[in-house]
């Protein structure tokens, strides 16, 4: 930064580039698209990326610790589908919720255990557990893709909650982002995640409990997925497990990575997730207003991601350390 607060372009990293693209897009849309700058539309933008952002927060914590959680979307959809199925079959709410919480905890623990203690690469573990969760719940526990929320249930009421005319999921996203920020920035275990992500062996040598912390991250990610699932069901009054087959998982990784959280671990934070989510939200909203067909939307999204990565490659060439360790 120089005196007037402009970032020095040499110190620009991917987060800065993406933030700049987001600002430019925002300005262009605000000028060029009628109704874009309307407060209600801005709220709609934030809301449209709230669930995505919440999932990306969970993913960010795992990635910073040099891992990845590909089971997030499966956990999100299937835990809530199972919960609603239990409710629809007449089980008391408390008991049903306890079952689902236990299930989510178990999958988080299984992910963490296999990565931390069995030393299986995270990408394989979570790919497998994600498929397992989907397959097991879909075939054994629920009878249909779409499970409706029982009428008058608190999940339905949650979806209707507004504060200052802003949907509740925006506040939950903001609240979770703040909690994750505090955790990563100011707690000892939060700081340890960076050490462990940057250099696990060194972190272990200086006495950081690397393995238990790894387990904790996957459990956190699983719980965050449950929250995201509940919010989805709250808004739509049902959950459709078909979402597991969608590109949502890649969008989550996209939000985290495009915001500048390196897949090699040890870098980034909540701010990166917010920047990534902002770009995706503005982009999708503007493209919907212009009425661009979905095929082209995906193309534009991919082109912008590719552009950000290429520019990042020029400005921040890979150093010796990443070259040796490699990304995941």
């Amino acid at each position, binding site marked *: 930064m120089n005196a007037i607060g402009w970032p020095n372009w040499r110190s620009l990293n991917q987060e800065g580039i993406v933030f700049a693209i987001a600002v430019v897009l925002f300005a262009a849309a605000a000028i060029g698209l009628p109704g874009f700058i309307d407060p209600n539309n801005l709220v709609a933008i934030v809301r449209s990326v709230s669930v995505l952002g919440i999932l990306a927060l969970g993913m960010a914590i795992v990635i910073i610790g040099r891992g990845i959680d590909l089971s997030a979307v499966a956990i999100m959809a299937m835990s809530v589908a199972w919960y609603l199925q239990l409710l629809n079959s007449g089980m008391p709410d408390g008991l049903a919720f306890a079952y689902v919480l236990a299930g989510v905890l178990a999958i988080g623990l299984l992910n963490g255990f296999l990565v931390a203690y069995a030393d299986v690469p995270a990408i394989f573990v979570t790919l497998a557990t994600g498929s397992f969760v989907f397959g097991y719940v879909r075939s054994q526990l629920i009878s249909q893709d*779409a499970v409706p929320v029982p009428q008058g249930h608190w999940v339905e009421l949650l*979806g209707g909650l507004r504060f200052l005319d802003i949907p509740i999921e925006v506040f939950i996203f903001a609240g979770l982002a703040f909690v994750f920020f505090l955790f990563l920035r100011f707690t000892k275990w939060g700081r340890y995640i960076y050490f462990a992500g940057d250099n696990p062996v060194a972190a272990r040598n200086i006495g950081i409990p690397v393995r238990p912390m790894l387990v904790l991250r996957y459990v956190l990610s699983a719980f965050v997925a449950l929250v995201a699932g509940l919010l989805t069901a709250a808004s739509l009054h049902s959950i459709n497990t*078909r979402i597991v087959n*969608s590109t949502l998982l890649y969008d989550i990784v996209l939000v985290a990575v495009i915001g500048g959280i390196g897949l090699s671990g040890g870098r980034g934070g909540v701010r990166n997730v917010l920047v990534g989510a902002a770009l995706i939200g503005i982009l999708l909203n503007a493209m919907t207003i212009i009425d661009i067909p979905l095929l082209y939307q995906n193309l534009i999204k991919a082109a912008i991601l590719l552009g950000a990565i290429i520019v990042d490659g020029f400005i921040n060439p890979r150093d010796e350390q990443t070259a040796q360790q490699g990304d995941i």
Partner: protein
Amino acid sequence: MKIIRTFMAAAAVFAVSAFIAPSFAAEDPGPAAYSQALKGKRVMLIPMAMGFDLAQGWAHFLKKEVDAWGGTFETRDPNWVVDAGAQAITDAISSDTRPDVLIIHSPDLNSYAKLMKKAQAAGTYVLLVDNPANFPADAFVGSDWDRLGQLEAEAAIKGCGPNSSKKLGLVQGDQANSSSLYQYAGIMKVLEKNPDFKVVAKPDSNWDATTSRNVTTTMLQQNPDICAIIDFWDGDATGAAAAIRDAKLEGKVFLVTTGGGEKTADCDKLQDGTYGAVVMTDLARQSGDMNAIIKFLLQSGQPAGTSKTYIYTLEKATTKADLKPDSCWDLKALQAEAAAK
């Protein structure tokens, strides 16, 4: 004497058998021929996924009939994955127990064309259900999506009324599925005849409810005076409904969609005002059409791939006003019936 007695006995036997003979002649040859042609034949349904109402309904009605004539009915569940569906068809054709009739719910116009040709070459009749494809199947059973789109547009125009803003919004499925493309074409045909009605936005939902909600929110934000929205499938129209609810435009925006006529998916939502009109498929009748054409093909003796029949299901836009107790079928009841067996 002995000869006379023998002769009389023979005459008596002849007389009795003469009485019996007409009852032999009264035996209807139909059932035997029917049974001989059908018994032990295999029918396989490969929908886009088994997890949604239409597929479960088809499977229920087909199984009932196939079991009754002594055949084997099987399903495969590709779970919305096109490759998995292709694999299922390939396996079915090459297995020892090759199905005699393959019923395919094609995900798009082209993906399975080659495989279906292979199936016909192997001697399997191919039926397309619900989604048309660029392939001359032995029979297509399903909606005329163009006509269905016209019905939707007519319902939307009626729902808007003559004194409305006359602005319509569409939430399309995608740009690959024939049901989405033809529905759009049908809607546009009606709008050509009603030039004062305009489509102000036509985003895709990619059949996903969350996407449908987000694009509908934006659409309503940009055009708060939209009088009707047509969402191309009830599977994601819950998202458009949520957006209308959130924008506090319930009762002002007339939501039209289409679906399989399942009770919780369609009729309940018409009843509570979530949907203004639903163009519903008469599932029992559609399944009945499939059963009839299967029985015909298996008895016809004509080789697979030589006929080309279109059997369109009669469609109708249903609103709350003409909702009847039998307008919908109940998936839960069908499942309970299946479980009771």
